[in-house]
């Protein structure tokens, strides 16, 4: 079967939606809660750390442009350990995906449709995700470009129309020292570290020359970092530390914007970009999960396992947290630790070190990626 091709814009849009799809709404809240007024500095620190993850991803691509994460595991660590890492990755994916689904459904339900049964959202998202995964990577990539434009527009509109509302100075700088800032940066790193997921789609980047891929990955991360920093600055500048008190501060900011009669009720735009972004983020995560499982079990096609696996993930998601307090605690404080000590930082680091040390002795198996 011919491998679908992904160009630079599509790659950039995948990384962009991957991170910003959910973080645009949630990240200012989680960061401000820990770092206070210095939240925007945390975002800058987080971006710098995420660039390191981006460099690691590129280092892997540079050495294995034809393989994806599961095959790289096997080539680096041998069959047994590689498979253990592989299955661990699938579990990690399912867990992360279930958090994304839970966020998507509970926030959509909480803000926009408070009286609808949450099960409805789960079923609707389930159907969409299954459909998108079935259609394949190519369509997903192209849709990402469209939704990226939507997200950028929303972001710009909120930033530009928010300027007249800015009235709280972002002072005092670093009054509590550097420590809260570093603590606050854990959450952005864990979000932006999700760029690791594109190791799953290396074989699709057939048209790339390596230098361009590198600039694409790093530039997208920088743009996302700037977005995070700006949106945190604006939330702090408009709401002040009131942002600590709110569940979704960005949504409150959007509700406050009122410029004459034309720019009102921008929360509708937020809803648009939230639902679209979350759907695509889920789909991409799910695509990677299915692909990884398919490779690990040596199946010929991934289509037949889409529905059962989706069912498993949605069941885990549906029964994950009982209320929004648990969810925000999990997202802000547990998930960063969980992910940074596993597949977002530690394991890529181990992989890069192993690669560096045994560069010459990597097995040249003829194992190939098949879509």
């Amino acid at each position, binding site marked *: 079967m011919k491998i679908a091709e992904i160009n630079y814009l599509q790659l950039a849009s995948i990384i962009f939606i991957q991170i910003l799809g959910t973080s645009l709404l949630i990240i200012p809240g989680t960061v401000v809660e820990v770092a206070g007024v210095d939240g925007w500095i945390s975002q800058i620190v987080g971006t710098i750390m995420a660039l390191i993850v981006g460099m690691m991803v590129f280092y892997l691509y540079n050495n294995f442009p034809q393989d994806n994460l599961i095959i790289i595991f096997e080539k680096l660590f041998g069959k047994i350990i590689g498979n253990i890492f592989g299955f661990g990755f699938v579990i990690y994916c399912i867990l992360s995906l279930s958090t994304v689904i839970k966020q998507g459904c509970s926030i959509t339900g909480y*803000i926009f449709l408070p009286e609808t049964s949450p099960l409805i959202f789960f079923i609707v998202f389930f159907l969409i995700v299954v459909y998108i995964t079935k259609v394949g990577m190519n369509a997903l990539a192209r849709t990402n470009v469209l939704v990226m434009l939507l997200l950028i527009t929303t972001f710009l509109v909120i930033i530009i129309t928010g300027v007249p509302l800015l009235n709280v100075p972002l002072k*005092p700088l670093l009054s509590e020292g550097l420590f809260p800032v570093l603590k606050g940066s854990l959450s952005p790193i864990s979000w932006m570290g999700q760029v690791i997921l594109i190791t799953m789609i290396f074989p699709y980047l057939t048209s790339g020359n390596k230098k361009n891929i590198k600039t694409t990955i790093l530039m997208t991360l920088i743009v996302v970092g700037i977005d995070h920093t700006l949106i945190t600055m604006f939330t702090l500048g408009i709401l*002040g530390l*009131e942002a600590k008190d709110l569940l979704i501060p960005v949504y*409150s900011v959007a509700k*406050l914007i*009122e410029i004459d009669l034309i720019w009102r009720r921008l929360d509708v735009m937020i809803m648009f970009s939230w639902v679209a972004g979350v759907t695509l983020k889920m789909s991409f995560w799910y695509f990677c999960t299915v692909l990884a499982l398919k490779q690990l079990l040596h199946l010929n096609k991934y289509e037949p396992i889409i529905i059962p696996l989706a069912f498993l993930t949605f069941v885990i998601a549906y029964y994950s947290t009982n209320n929004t307090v648990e969810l925000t605690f999990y997202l802000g404080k547990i998930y960063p630790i969980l992910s940074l000590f596993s597949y977002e930082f530690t394991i890529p680091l181990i992989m890069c070190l192993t690669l560096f040390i045994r560069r010459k002795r990597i097995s040249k198996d003829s194992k190939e990626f098949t879509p």
Partner: protein
Amino acid sequence: MKSLGVIAIILVLLLSSCTNSEEVDKLSLISAVGLEKMPDNEYKIIIQYLMPKKDQEPLPITKEVDGLSIYEANNNLNEFLPRKPYWSHNFVILLSEELAKEGIRSQLDFFRRNPEMRQDTLVAITESPRKILYNLQKQQLSGQTLKLIARQASARKGLGEVSTLHKVYQNLFFKKPFLTITHIFLDGENPRIDGFSIFDKDKYITTIKGDEARGLGFLKLKNKYSSVTMNCLDKENRQITFNLTNIHKKTNAYVNDLGIFEIRLSLEFEAFLAESHCMRNISDTDTIKKLEKALNKKIKELAKKTIEHSQQNVEIDYFGFGNLLYLNHPKKWKEIEGEYETVYKNADIKLKINTKIVQTGAVN
């Protein structure tokens, strides 16, 4: 298989309907709400809702209910309301002075927690919300009128910022809150905005009116326009009025080596002559200079009066100088945080006011 899918999609699109829809004619749109305290810890909420009439302005109707919490009272509303109360279009929250003395943060929680609620609702303090809302009903005015009055008073009269729910909470989250909320009182039959209520953190202290409220308007400077009337240079019993626009504000707060809290304020205004009863010709440049000086003095006088009131009478910093100190010198703030009341009482506040007369109107 494919055609089946297409048919399914068409059916979903055509045969769908809403299960728990909310039609406009099934809602009672709440336009104003007043909160009062009852003896045994109960709340009395007075709501004004709008009853739509055909080809007419909607009719405001005032009702009152009790409840242990505001949400409970809200549910009790349905004992006599035929429709579901809809809060999203609420314009005003009126709090009675008695209630505000217990701290407004807990009372306003309901309005913040409900995701339907808009955060630009006007929050106002008044002696008796009940009287005001019944008076509005009598005159067939909705809560929106109060909000518009507050907005006008802020823009034209120089009575500071409109205290919306968002602004109130933003202020409460400052290191040293300096909350001031619009005060409404009943002048005969008409609700009227006459000043600010000042707060210690979130507890109501007192209301300042008249000149003192004007002085606060000058010092807070969130308002664009305000006017000042003073005596003529030559004759004491005749007046001259200027309209002022603030163009520049610079504040600086620090604690000096002796432990005295020093505040430096410099304000710049552009004035234009709105009305003059004086006899003297004002096209003379010297006269303009003299008028500017007199104007500086007058504004300073007004501002000083408010500062004196704040330092001597109530001993509460409602200008936000403490917060300013925290923003610029967080370490110094930590030193004096515990005894801020006494430090502020002895603070040295210096004002520098610079007014320029830029227009004298169409008459020479």
